[in-house]
């Protein structure tokens, strides 16, 4: 058994996989990031590339790179197994109908979904303008993605935010856009994390007001909501804290019509023919 560590970097894994393939090393003889494997042997291979030359379709590299962002068991060994089978002429390993391929595509789907969650559920808070020192981020956000999607998926905000400077911190990595380039730190600096987690938001009330008034209590359907907006995101969304209250309010009477309770309490105004 060959034990490898790629530091969860696709580029490193790719080098290792190329070397393994060139020596025709079967996937069952390789493991990644496994500590003190019971079956570890002392087999030795030369460090240079071996004689076998594999032809790898470009489409496969794209699939593997995408699936590599998935955090979970067998993260790297599955990729090698797919690569192995395709290189040995079995292209079904890339397809969703195959046993291995279906797991590959499930991971890609999870990764894509998690990237989309970043685009959707991330919330920026505006920072007060610093009067001295070098200019820092104008907007900061704290986000907790379930997969390693930040580096690639955060590029989306470059187009969205124009020349603004912004920062996204997560428990693992972080990105900072300084107005011209995107800087990715694999270990998010503590300073960034604090900046993002302690940001004060005096103007936050407007969004909360909008959220609770666009909700139609007569159509209450919390199950569908949770399917689209998993509960793990609630704690980092400003509107997350409102959700249980809105649901119970709808259940206790507000479900009769669509209006929010405080609107019904206000003075109404019928309009005459001439406005």
């Amino acid at each position: 058994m060959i034990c490898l560590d790629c530091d969860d970097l696709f580029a490193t894994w790719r080098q290792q996989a190329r070397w393994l393939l060139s020596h025709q090393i079967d996937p069952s003889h390789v493991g990644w990031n496994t500590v003190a494997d019971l079956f570890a042997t002392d087999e030795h291979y030369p460090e240079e590339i071996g004689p076998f030359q594999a032809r790898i379709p470009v489409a496969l590299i794209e699939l593997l790179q995408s699936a590599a962002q998935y955090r979970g068991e067998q993260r790297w060994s599955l990729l090698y197994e797919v690569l192995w089978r395709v290189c040995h002429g079995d292209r079904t390993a890339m397809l969703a109908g195959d046993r291995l391929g279906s797991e590959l595509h499930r991971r890609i789907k999870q990764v894509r979904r998690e990237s989309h969650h970043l685009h959707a559920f991330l919330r920026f808070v505006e920072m007060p303008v610093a009067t001295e020192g070098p200019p820092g981020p104008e907007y900061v956000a704290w986000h907790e993605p379930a997969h390693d999607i930040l580096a690639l998926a955060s590029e989306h905000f470059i187009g969205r935010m124009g020349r603004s400077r912004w920062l996204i911190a997560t428990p693992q990595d972080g990105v900072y856009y300084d107005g011209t380039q995107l800087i990715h730190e694999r270990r998010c600096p503590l300073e960034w994390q604090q900046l993002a987690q302690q940001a004060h938001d005096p103007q936050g009330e407007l969004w909360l007001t909008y959220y609770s008034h666009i909700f139609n209590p007569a159509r209450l359907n919390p199950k569908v909501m949770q399917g689209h907006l998993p509960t793990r995101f609630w704690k980092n969304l400003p509107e997350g804290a409102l959700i249980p209250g809105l649901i119970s309010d709808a259940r206790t009477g507000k479900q009769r019509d669509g209006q929010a309770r405080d609107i019904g309490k206000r003075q109404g105004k019928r309009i005459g023919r001439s406005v």
Partner: protein
Amino acid sequence: MQLIDKLSILADAAKYDASCASSGAPKRSSEGKGGLGSTNGMGICHSYTPDGRCVSLLKILLTNFCLFDCQYCVNRRSSDVPRARFTPEEVVRLTVDFYRRNCISGLFLSSGIIRSADYTMEQLIRVARLLREEHQFRGYIHLKTIPEADPALIEEAGRYADRLSVNIELPTDASLQTLAPEKDVKSIKKAMSTIYTGQQTVLNEPRAPRFTPAGQSTQMIVGADQTDDSTILHSAESLYGNYGLKRVYYSAFSPIPNSPKSVPLAAPPLMREHRLYQADFLLRSYGYKADELLSGPGDLALDIDPKLAWALENRSVFPLDLNRAEPALIARIPGIGLRTTKRLVELRRQRRIRYEDLTRLRCVLAKAKPFFITSDYHPQQAEISTLLLRDQLRDRPQPQQLGLWG
């Protein structure tokens, strides 16, 4: 009145419009530019409210003062609701603020009719122009179009907005006359055709300024009158055909406070709305005709979906051999969607399809099982009567406790 009070009134007044889509816009980016905003064709739902609806756009009315007295509408003239009016600058401020926070992907602006149709339309356009020209806003803009407004104004709106929509409101002319006497189906359709003509004019002119690149849509209220699903679907089909609509939205009529006697008080018919959306999807993406889904008058079944209903009506087509059948027919198997169809076709180019493959493709096997054949599987259920099969496959409602007062 404070901005926050206006926001609460005018968001509450806007919630009955179902559409909140931000998809279909062309690629725009603010990278390295002043201003803000981007679109790439894909919509983003930034939040979900507990009614299960997506929050993609800031959906508000410019004002809920209104001259009209449409019976189903909470903002009708005779309704006793609090009223407010934003200035165009206030709408711009809210849009930019929410957009910066990444709470929305754009604006969906509608309005009650004040003074005149033209005046109201001019106000809506003013907001869009401020956003696009003064703030260089490149996010999504959807403007509700006032049907009676001057066509020149509608054309102007189409140059700023990604999407325009004119609400057809009710599926038949007769219902519109009863419930919305100030509205006129002729002007609604005329406005739709003004938009359609605008789109056709720029179609083959790559250098022409863009015109509603995300298309036009409309909304029909379901359950406020007695119209059946067949009429609704046929009406939707002709709207898609005649005006090249991107979407018809169906909005289950939500009871409104101080409801007039002309509209129902009951809870919104959500399941009916859901079935209409499913049927609509079959019209748009699967190539079904409204006649195939409902040939005579009547409603869609509530306990089975329209695709399954069609399959049960057309048993002679099934079971289909997945290793031979045309892709368009495979997509007609209940429980097998367009995506699975594509994957099956890819797979069968490599090897024969077996039953086990379908379990991995995550289709709804329980529904699909009676309708296909693979190299190692032939459905037993292919022989049983349609009535029995229908009973096996229908959705069973969760048992519900009886209300104490019946």
